[in-house]
Each structure stands twice: as C-alpha cells, then as structure tokens.
C-alpha cells in the first residue's frame, strides 16, 4: 500500500468489503422481511417478531460499539460515558414518541402522563418542537454532539488523558443518571418514557413499522462501518492512530491533538445518539438506567471482546455478549454474571485484540506472513503502554 492516501470512497472498502456490505443489506432489507412476513409461523426459517426486535436492539448496540471503537480503538481514549450519549439520543427521540401518543394516555391529555401527574400545565421549554419528527431526529444527533463537544473541548484542552479521562466520563454518566432520575427534570423520572403508540402516524407495533426500523438499524450500522472505514483510511485516521501511539510526537510535528480528538469524540457521540433514537421505538422504553455506570462499561467490553481498532470486531462483540446474555439469563441465570466477568478477564488477558485479532493471528500464522499493520494495530501495539500513566498525566497537566 505504497499508494498515496486518498479518500476515494471505494478505495475505502475495496471490492470484498462492498460485497459484504451488499450481502448484509440484502439480508437486512430483503431476506429477513420476507422470512418474517411471507413464511408462516412455525416454519423453520420464519423470523419471529421476537427475533426481529431482539436483533434490532442488538444492531443499535452494535452501532454504539462501532462508535466506541472509533474513539477507543483508534483514538486510544476510553470513554466510560457513552451510555449517556446513547440515552440522550433515545430521550430526544422519545420526546417525539411521547407526543405522538396524543390524547391516548391514561389522562387523555395533550401532555405526557407524567407531566399531567406533576400538575404541569404546559410543556417545559425544552419540549418545544418535540412533536416534529425531524426536529426530534435533529436533537437526537445534536444534543449528544453538543454535550460531547463541550465536555471534550475542556477535557482535551486541559490534556486530560487515559484513566483520568475515563474516570471523569464516569462521573459524567453518574451525574446524568441522577439528574434524569429526578421527576422534576421533566423526563418521567425513573420510569422514563414508555407505552409508545405510533411513529409518523404508523403504529409502532405494526410488523411493517418494525421491519422499517429494523432496516434502518441495518442501514445505520452499515453506514457507521463505512464511515469508520473511510475515516480510518484517510490521513485523519493516520493522525488519530499516531496520537494514540505517541501524542507528544504528534504535537512536535505540528498537529494539534485537541482538534483531532474533539472531532472523533463528537462524531462518536453523535453516532451513539442516532443509535439511541433507533433503539427506543424498537425496545419501547427509555429510562435513566441506560446511563448507569455499568452499562457504559459494558459497551467497552463489547469492543474489547470483538477486538479494538477493527471496526467489525465491536459489531461481533456486541452480538456475542448480548446474545449470550439473552441465552444465559434464560438458561442459568445464577451464572450469568460469572460468565460476563470471566469474559472480561480472559479477553483482556489473552485476547488483547479480541476475537478478530485472535482469528487474524491464526490466519496469518497459517499464511506464515505478518498481518496487515494498518488500520488494525498489531498485537504489539495493544501491549504498548497507554500514553500516560496516572503520575505522567499529572505532570502533563502541570506543564499545560
């Protein structure tokens, strides 16, 4: 790959990649819907509503995982706050869904039930326009983006790195969760939003609507993957990974890491927001527990399991972890946490590059030639120390 780096979209993926995309699109937009609508229930290939909602949900998680991979896998910044952006997207779109309920709530009021209940006479200012689909969609992207930008700008400007950053993102999530738990906040307290009726006038429970949402999830995921791939192939991607590996060097050759980090960080948050917006109508509820510290950490786990800095890995990770969760919690609930815990430990210890990395290693061993270096950092890369040890980052701060 001596060829100069250019962002030719198609160069971004290459024929096989595009084949894969087409394949996925085919499955997501044609096969699954057909299997769901045409085949009778009980037919071995029939895809049930349950399956559709479950996979739809996991697809949304997968998008979050990809977003996380961009910031962590390629930017080397571990965020323990991505749950917030996901939830914010969900809430923004949830507001629209709540408004769509109209007068069918149990209080037959124009206001959402929980507001009637709090004796609110009209909508609080931040609900204005929430009955417009597009506005809600815009919010779902803009709100997480804005929050991320502000938070990121200050954090990165003060050169908060590595663990420090992770910890304050954790504080952010925690604070946000408590804030949304409050009833006065105006987002339904810990019950959050639920019992949605329709979206753009279509009933949320209609199979067509479900399939549409499912298709959109597939589209979003593919979009995220392509975007990620292209970004990483571009010079931007190279600078990003360079920052991950040696930030000071990057600075001394004249790049300002602040803006690179800020860009990818905000982008990642926006992706999460979109995923959240798609997640809510499919799952039928959004509430503050999505912002719990544990959830955000789990996102990191999906990425770690699938393989950092591999884009496709996180998708796998999200799938593996969530499906096994669904399965374990049915088959033997008591051991679910053991499994999850051990998964974290073993992956971090023995699969620093996750399943994808491991698989690549196997193949390269078979082929007896080194695995392609970029964009997936070699296993050695994962083992190289994080840019800053805590004490180190303290000193960076001191000199800032």
């Amino acid at each position: 790959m001596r060829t100069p780096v250019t962002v030719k979209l198609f160069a971004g993926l290459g024929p096989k990649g595009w084949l894969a995309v087409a394949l996925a699109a085919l499955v997501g937009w044609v096969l699954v819907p057909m299997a769901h609508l045409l085949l009778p229930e009980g037919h071995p290939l029939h895809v049930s509503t349950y399956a559709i909602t479950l996979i739809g949900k996991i697809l949304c998680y997968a998008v979050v995982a990809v977003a996380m991979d961009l910031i962590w896998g390629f930017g080397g910044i571990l965020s323990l706050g991505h749950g917030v952006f996901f939830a914010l997207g969900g809430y923004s779109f949830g507001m629209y869904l709540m408004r769509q309920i109209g007068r069918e709530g149990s209080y037959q009021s124009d206001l959402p039930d929980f507001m009637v209940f709090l004796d609110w006479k009209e909508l609080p200012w931040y609900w204005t326009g929430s009955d417009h689909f597009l506005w809600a969609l815009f919010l779902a992207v803009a709100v997480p983006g804005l929050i991320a930008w502000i938070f990121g700008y200050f954090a990165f400007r003060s050169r908060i790195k590595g663990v420090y950053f992770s910890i304050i993102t954790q504080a952010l999530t925690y604070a946000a969760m408590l804030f949304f738990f409050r009833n006065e906040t105006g987002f339904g307290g810990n019950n959050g939003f639920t019992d949605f009726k329709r979206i753009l006038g279509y009933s949320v429970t209609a199979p067509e609507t479900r399939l549409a949402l499912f298709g959109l999830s597939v589209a979003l995921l593919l979009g995220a993957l392509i975007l990620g791939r292209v970004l990483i192939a571009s010079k931007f991607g190279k600078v990003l990974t360079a920052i991950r590996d040696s930030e000071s060097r990057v600075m001394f050759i004249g790049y300002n890491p602040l803006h690179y980090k800020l860009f990818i960080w905000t982008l990642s948050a926006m992706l999460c927001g979109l995923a959240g917006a798609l997640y809510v109508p499919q799952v039928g509820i959004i509430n503050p527990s999505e912002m719990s510290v544990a959830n955000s950490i789990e996102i990191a786990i999906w990425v770690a399991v699938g393989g950092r800095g591999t884009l496709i890995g996180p998708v796998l990770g999200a799938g593996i972890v969530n499906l096994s969760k669904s399965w374990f919690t049915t088959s033997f609930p008591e051991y679910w946490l053991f499994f999850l815990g051990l998964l974290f430990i073993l992956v971090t210890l023995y699969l620093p590059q996750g399943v994808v990395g491991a698989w690549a290693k196997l193949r390269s061993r078979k082929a007896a030639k080194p695995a392609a270096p970029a964009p997936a950092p070699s296993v050695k890369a994962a083992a190289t120390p994080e840019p800053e040890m805590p004490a180190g980052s303290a000193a960076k701060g001191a000199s800032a």
Partner: protein
Amino acid sequence: MKRIFLLLSLVLGLCATSVRADVDPAALKALGADDFDAKSGAIATLVAAGDADARRILTALSDDALAVAGERIVIVAGDQVLDAATGAAIKPTPASPESISLNNSLRQQVNSALAALRLLSADRAERLASAKSLLSDMGEGATLLPLLDKALKQEQDGEIKPILVQLRAQASLASPDAALRLQAVKDLSNSASPAVKALLLGLLEKQGDTFVEPDEKVRAEAQFAIKAIDSRLVWSDLSGRLFTGISLGSILLLAALGLAITYGVMGVINMAHGELLMVGAYSAYAMQGLFRSHLPDYVDYYVVAAVPVAFFAAALVGMAMERTVIRHLYGRPLETLLATWGLSLVLIQAARLLFGAQNVEVANPAWMSGGLQLAENLSLPWNRLVIVAFSGFVLLVVWLMMNKTRLGMFVRAVTQNRPMAGCVGVPTARIDTLAFGIGSGIAGLGGVALSQIANVGPDMGQGYIVDSFMVVVLGGVGQLAGAVWAALGLGVVTKFLEGWAGAVIAKILVLVFIIVFIQKRPQGLFALKGRFVE
C-alpha cells in the same frame, strides 16, 4: 434490664402482700381487652392507685410480661406464672398465656407513669434516672401534677430537685391557674430542650381565633422563653451540621484510602475496589455470627475482632487478584480497568451464592449504638464517632507503613522506578503483590466501618466505587494528604449542599464540581511536578 424489672416487681409484690389494697378487677380485665380506650383508661386507674400492686402490674405490662390466661390476667416471670392481682404464683401453670401487647402511645403512658411512681422511691439513683427519663418524654403531664408536687416536697437531693422543678413547670403549663402557668413558663425559660420549646410553642397556637393560652402576660413570657431557648439551640445546631460533614468525610476517606494506595501509588485502576469493601463488611458479618454462636458474652467486641480478620481477608483476595490478573496488566491501566470490572462482577455473584442475594444483618454493638448527648438537641451517634476515630487510626497506620517501614520504602521505590529498584535487589514482583495486598486490606477495614452504618449485601460495593475514585482523583494521585483533604472537603460540602438543595441535587452538584475542578487542575489538589521523558 428486663431481669431487674422483674425482680423489682417481685420484691414489690412481696411487700405488697402486707399492705393489701385491692387492684380494681375491672381495670385489670380491661388491660386484656382489645380496645385502646379501655386499656388506656385501665392504666390511668392503676397509676391513680399508685400502690405496689399497680406498680407490679405496670412494670410487667411495660416488659410485655403481662398476659391473658383464659379468664385471668397473669404475669409471666421466667418459667412460673403469677396472678397479676395478687402476685401469687399460680399452680398448676396455665397453658400458653397470650401476652398483652402495647402500641406506642400506651407504652409511653405506662413508662411515664412508672417513672413518675419511681420518683418516690427510696433509692436516689432510681429517682434521678426516672426524673431524667421524664424530662425527655413526659407526654401529657397534667395527670402527674399531684405526684410531682408530692415528690418535690420530699425531695432533698440537689441534683434531682431542679429537674423536678422543670417537670412540675411542664406539667403545670396546662393548669387553670394563670399565675401558676406564668411561673411555669418562667421556670422553663432556662431550659435548652426542644421538647420544652415545643410545649411553649403549643401555648401560642391558635384554636379557631382564640389562643390556647388565654393570658396575655403568659404568652409574652412564653415568647421570651422561646427566644432564650433558641439562642441556646443555635450553637449546637451548627456544630451538629459540621459533624455530619466530617463524619461523611471520614467514611469517604475509609472507602477511598485503599484505592489511594492501589491506584494512587501503584497506578492500578481497581474497579473491584468496592467488592474489597464488601469482603471486609462480610467478614464483620462472619465474625458477628462466630461470636454469637461461640462467645455470646463478648459479642459486643466482635467488631474489634473483625478488624484484623477483615484486613487479612480482603488482603488475601487482593493478592489473589494481583497474582492472577492484575500482574499481567501493569502499564496498561485501561485494560486493568476492564479486567478488574470483570473481577468485581465475579466477586458480587460469588457473594450472592455464598450469603444469598438478601442483605445480611450486622448489628451495632451496644457500645456503638445510641449517641453521645452533648446538648438536648445535639447527640453524636457513637458509631459515627467511632468511625471518625477509626479513620484517623487507619490513616496513621498507612502513613507509617508507607513512610517509616522498609516495605513502604520498597513500594515507593518500585512504583517510581521499577527496573532500577529491581537492579538494587528489591524483589519487585513480591513488593507489587504485597503493596496491592495492603491496599486491599485497608479497603477491607473500610468495609468493617461501612458495615456499621450501611447495608451489607452483595452489591454494596458498587455504591462506593465512583465516590472513592472521585476522592483519589480530586486529592491528587499518590497523595495521602490529598485524599484526606478531598474526602473531608467533599463530605462537608455535600452536607452543606444537602441542607440547602436536597440530597439529589447535592450529589449532582458535587460530581459536576469535580469534573470542572479536574479541568482546572488535572493533577488534583496536590500536584506532582517534574520532568517526564516519554
């Protein structure tokens, strides 16, 4: 306690046989009834009688020793059953007497009555005790007025007399004689008790458009008295608030101190820190169980025994963690973070399977229950006082260990320059394990402290992990002093905010404050400066 009462009642019972004044059987019967007013009336009549029999029955009643056996009311004293009316043992013992239960208001009525009766007792200590107990809760005192007068007349003791005056004043606030009431209010104005204040406020209440207290002068006097009392209450109020802050701070400190070592000094992001607290707490629980079953007489000291046990239990778990997992992740903080999070999940579930999902019961030992009464409205709970002291002790130990022992020196050496330390012959690997063990052990100690104020359950640790990290980060990594200031600071600030904005907002504000603070001083309160070559 219960024993003493029973003895007392028996003694009284015996001497009563000589001077027999019959107990009103109707009243006795009513005690067994299921009707509140009947019971309350019966108790009143017994108090009025005020003789030994009445006293015996009331005592029994307050000890839940009074019971209904078929038709008669009896007192259950250990394995024998006495006739309530006569105090004579009943042969043969009637089968399964139904104990008569009191609800709060009846119990209060009985207790204050008993206390009042005991004012006449010959034993000074007993008189003093009962006077004091009446002071805190006399309830509707008017009925006791005659008794108090009697007591006051024959009371000579310099300590008891003023209390009686107070009591009498309280009781006579309701008396029809305005002069008497005025005097009463005057007497009360030099009290410092919120209860008294409450009484006086009662006088100023309006019922309809007429005041409860008709007399203008008395009301004015009451106003004055209330001001006087308030001025006494202010000081203790403030110091009380400060103490709550310090107490919370000490708890945050205990929770974070272990982390200050594992993270602060060794740079290990231990997300399982909370679970090490849990291990400590559960070892306290285990010790309690052990003492209850084997050393019932010393059960109050299980906490003391729990301290070393918790330390070693947590230390062992910690070292195991270090050996098996963390050791392979040095220099990769973020991976450590994930792996230890996994560890924490495993530990939580393990605790669930071992002790059940349900929280377990850990009791404050007697010497840690109740509070130290500094003023009428300021009592510092013993368990919190002890914990504040304990955190100071732990801090001292840690400081000594890190700065005055060879081990501490090694730890600092290794964490500052591993290869060099290795070269000069420091067994780095072992030091790592030990250091981590110590950090974990200290977390265990924190767990013991927590078990005295909060839940002990499988996921108790989750609640502290964020706070602990905040304290360490805020204090400045690797800075014990920093951790201390951060913990106390956070404690006091939180409490101040809580008083003003409520618990929820307070918590949010504190977190936001931390985030902002880190922006300004990423190195925390106490900076490490120096040149760092990459």
